[in-house]
């Protein structure tokens, strides 16, 4: 009886398995006409607004192309990464293994992006990073199939180092959160600033995401530097800028920062941010035909003004399109796909850029000044600045 039952079970299982395999292959045959894009972005949590802007930008470009690239329609599979590094590997594997996506796009949080880069490297899936600035993504973890449409943390920091040195400041204090993005940004700043003869006299840190700045502001006041360089973003940036002004330091010690200090935060910072100088790869009031067209199209589609994150999403889609066009929509030709993106000039709203050897944008970094609710461009702080891609072997 047991034997008979086992036999029946085996038959049933085999049938089931066969059916499953057949079903899957039929399903696959049906979707090959579409390119599957796996969007892994934050839909909840601190960075939810950034995730939305990136997705909006990405979809906008593809809509402008009539929803098709190289004759193939785009199908989206979405996962909310919650900006949660501990869930990142599971989430990205869902997209790669369960959904069989052709291209991965994500994400905002650097820790999550690193897990994505690792999974993309292991599986060979093409990955386009539309924000996360961790130097490592186009450094030690770089890969032939990994691209970034945004920036490396090093870039705005380095550009600001040159600016602050040019302003004649000699002794500077840096202050940031003790985590990868802050460290990398400060390192970039220090590299350029000390090369130009300045000196970073004190590097102040506080644990992420602590926002009790008062003790360190007192430290700054007692050190009396010529200027302060800072990297903060989001709620922390708002509070830092307000506390810095309230502590009376703004009128005594000029504050410089990476652009995230004043991006998406100006309404909350109010007058306390007025006049601040920051560096980033995008700015308000660029006034180029390309940027104007993009802004108009974005505003019309979403009834919202675009920001730097929307630009990064838009350019991620442009990079995908450039690659797909070169292989006539056949994304399995990965080497040719990658070669095409490497050669492409991306006609970005921020200004045209190409990708460097480690697949990070070689781009102009703007010096911007806060005026009202805008980060108005002042000048180009560093022309065609390329991340050194340290540790990348490509």
């Amino acid at each position, binding site marked *: 009886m047991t034997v008979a039952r086992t036999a029946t079970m085996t038959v049933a299982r085999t049938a089931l398995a066969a059916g499953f395999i057949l079903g899957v292959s039929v399903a696959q045959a049906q979707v090959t006409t579409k390119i599957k894009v796996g969007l892994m972005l934050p839909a*909840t*949590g*601190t960075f*939810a*607004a950034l995730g*939305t802007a990136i997705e909006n930008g990405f979809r906008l470009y593809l809509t402008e192309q009539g929803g098709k690239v190289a004759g193939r329609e785009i199908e989206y599979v979405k996962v909310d990464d919650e900006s949660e590094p501990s869930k990142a590997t599971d989430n990205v594997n869902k997209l790669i293994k369960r959904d069989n996506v052709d291209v991965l796009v994500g994400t905002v949080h650097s820790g999550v992006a690193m897990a994505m880069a690792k999974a993309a490297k292991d599986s060979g899936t093409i990955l386009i990073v539309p924000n996360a600035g961790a130097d490592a993504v186009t450094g030690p973890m770089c890969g032939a199939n990994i691209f970034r449409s945004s920036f490396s943390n090093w870039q705005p920091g380095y550009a600001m180092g040159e600016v602050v040195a040019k302003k004649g400041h000699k002794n500077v204090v840096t202050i940031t959160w*003790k985590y990868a993005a802050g460290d990398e940004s400060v390192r970039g700043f220090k590299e350029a600033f000390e090369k130009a003869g300045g000196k970073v006299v004190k590097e*102040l*840190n*506080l*644990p992420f*995401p*602590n*926002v*009790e700045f*008062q*003790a*360190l*502001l*007192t*430290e700054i*006041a*007692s050190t*009396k530097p010529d200027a302060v360089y800072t990297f903060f973003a*989001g*709620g922390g*940036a*708002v*509070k830092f800028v*307000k*506390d810095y002004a*309230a*502590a*009376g*330091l703004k009128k*005594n*010690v000029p504050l410089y920062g990476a652009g995230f200090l004043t991006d*998406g*935060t100006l*309404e*909350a*910072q*109010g007058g306390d941010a007025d006049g601040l100088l920051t560096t980033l790869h995008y700015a308000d009031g660029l006034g180029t035909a390309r940027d104007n067209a993009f802004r108009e199209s974005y505003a019309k589609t979403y009834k919202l003004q675009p920001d730097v994150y929307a630009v990064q999403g838009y350019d991620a889609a442009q990079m995908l399109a450039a690659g797909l066009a070169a292989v006539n929509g056949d994304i399995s030709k990965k080497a040719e796909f990658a070669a095409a993106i490497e050669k492409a000039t991306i006609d970005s709203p921020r200004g045209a850029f190409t990708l460097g050897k480690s697949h990070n944008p070689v781009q102009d970094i703007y010096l911007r000044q806060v005026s009202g609710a805008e980060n108005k461009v002042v000048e180009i702080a560093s022309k065609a600045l390329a991340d050194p891609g340290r540790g990348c072997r490509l």
Partner: protein
Amino acid sequence: MDLATFLIQCLNSLQYGLLLFLVASGLTLIFGIMGVINLAHGSFYMIGAYMAFALSPIVAATFGGGFFATLLVGLVLAVLLGYALEWAFYSYLYDREHLQQVLMTYGLILVFEELRSLFVGDDVHGVKAPDILSGTLPLGEMMTYPVYRLFISGVCIALALGMYFVFTRTRLGMMIRAGSTNREMVQSLGIDIKFLYRVVFAAGVALAALAGMVAAPISSVYPGMGGSVLIICFVVVVIGGIGSIRGALLAALLIGFVDTFGKVLLPQAAGVLVYVLMALILLWKPDGLFKAG
């Protein structure tokens, strides 16, 4: 560190400690005295801060505005919210295991975050301090000190004194303390313990929301802000001793000093110092500084 800087850092420590007490005061009631592990405490704080932001235009339109009017309206709403939440959810938790309390209150965090995202969006917002308190005082040669921070300290001290008085000197406080020791006995003495707890819970929510509203002008309001205060609030209550208001105040001040001077003198370890302090105190006094009798 010269004397002037040292004194300013002491002021910073004191101010931060008082702010911590303010933020943790609601948890002292709900976790400390009622014994419910309330992970949603941070959400109540967040709700308060967002009320300070979202209500002010509405209050301005109906009552002619003002920060303090907004504060009052927010407090009333918070009491109502607390009362309703206790009736709908928390009243089922008193006799349950801790794990079930954790699960439900964690669920509430997710619900409140999602509602916040739906109603107010995911952007960072600033809240303006009232005009009479928006000035600054000179401090040293370079620095100034915002008057609003002093105002917060004042609110904290008043609150601490008020809570202490109610709990140790009034009949209501006596009933609450008795209820936390033995519910059945209090009930058999003819006191409506259910109603009493509903009121205490509503007060706890109102305190958390008040903290959020008062802190909003200096902390600004942003997604996930509740999560950032939750852990430190538990640390305050645990170090102080469950159920002790005096303990919570002392613990908050202690943390203020350790955190402030830790950031300056031992920046590499600033993130863990507070927890080291907690571990040491619990080794020395496993029930916290003051165990409520």
